[in-house]
């Protein structure tokens, strides 16, 4: 093939290690975007690879392998919510699938979460938007957030609670 082989239509993985190396970060990121914490993201990533690599056929093309990892991850995530909260809080959708499968060689791109978070924040009134931005995105303590907003810690807590309820009511943009 010309162009140093980069145009080969159907890239394949040499072995399971290549599958792992190429996908562990992106699968982790995708799941992190759906659980929001390391402990669960690590457990679920483990579950995905433990389940997927054994039965995987390497003759499949790289995009097919990623589709398969995506499907496994979707099932694993659904099981996680069934076990922990009893209903499906987040799910992997076609946006996530596109993100995982089409993503080029760099797995450093953040998941779909930042874009979804922005969409939520953009719809909130100013005080709600700011408290959530400070607490969740900027990782401020309640005290720091209260200071930044010039309000008491007690009120910051109430405001955060209301803001989250409001964000939830915005509906299903966030899924």
């Amino acid at each position, binding site marked *: 093939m010309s162009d140093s082989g980069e145009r080969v239509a159907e890239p394949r993985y040499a072995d399971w290690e290549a599958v792992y190396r190429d996908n562990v970060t992106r699968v982790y990121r995708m799941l992190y975007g759906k659980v929001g914490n390391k402990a669960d993201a690590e457990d679920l990533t483990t579950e995905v690879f433990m*389940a*997927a690599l054994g039965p995987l056929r390497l003759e499949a093309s790289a995009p097919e392998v990623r589709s398969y990892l995506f499907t496994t991850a979707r099932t694993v995530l659904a099981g996680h919510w069934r076990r922990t909260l009893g209903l499906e809080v987040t799910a992997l959708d076609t946006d996530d699938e596109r993100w995982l499968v089409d993503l080029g060689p760099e797995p450093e791109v953040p998941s779909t*979460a930042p874009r979804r978070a922005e969409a939520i924040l953009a719809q909130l009134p100013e005080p709600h938007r700011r408290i959530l931005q400070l607490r969740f995105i900027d990782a401020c303590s309640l005290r720091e957030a209260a200071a930044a907003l010039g309000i008491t810690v007690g009120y910051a807590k109430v405001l955060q609670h209301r803001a989250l309820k409001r964000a939830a009511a915005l509906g299903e943009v966030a899924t």
Partner: protein
Amino acid sequence: MSTQRYVRDLLRGRRPRRFPADAEAAAELRAAITLAAAKPDADSPREEFVHDLHRRLSEQLAPAPTARSAPEPSSNVVPLRLGPTRRRVLLAGGVAAGAAAIGAVGDHLISADSTAGDTEAAGTLEPNVGTWRQVAASSDLEVGGVRQFDAGSVVGFVSRDAAGLRAVSGICTHQGCRLNLDPDGRQLDCPCHNTSFAVDGALVRHQLPQPPAALPHLQVRERGGQVEVYLPTV
């Protein structure tokens, strides 16, 4: 309130604790999770984690010593009334204890739609006339632990993970062979056709033309320091 505790855990980077959520709580948590996941650089996996998972996968995928001689059927069985010193507790290492809740994963690459919804093929065994029977002392079943029990008419496995207790049947849903707990205590292997189930009953792998159903669950509870399973009254 549980929702607020969950959010607090998220904000502190701790594993959030489970609770029975309703739709309102779910909507709130969905927003909280999306926001928490958008924190810059939060979603990079730890290097140790990537390395450690690689090691575990190498172990799992290494060509297994296939000629494990047929296990003595009774050797793994925990009789119901043994003293604590003779009880075998099999601890699963690491985070995957009882975790794999995978749908039917065939021996071939499967199409994108075929796994969804397959995970809960089996229901819960509810005998017409049943009794709660002790199968293990609570203290003998730590988080990550799995224990086999033999109650005559029913054999099975109880396990405990972060989410709580769980009991499943110990009989393969394909043709009724009795399952063995693998040496790592992570999954239940059928000696007949290389089928494996997670300790929560989900099918992990098989080589059959059709995926066998997940293992039936049994009702399980904890009373007075004992783990009890609801079993048919003999």
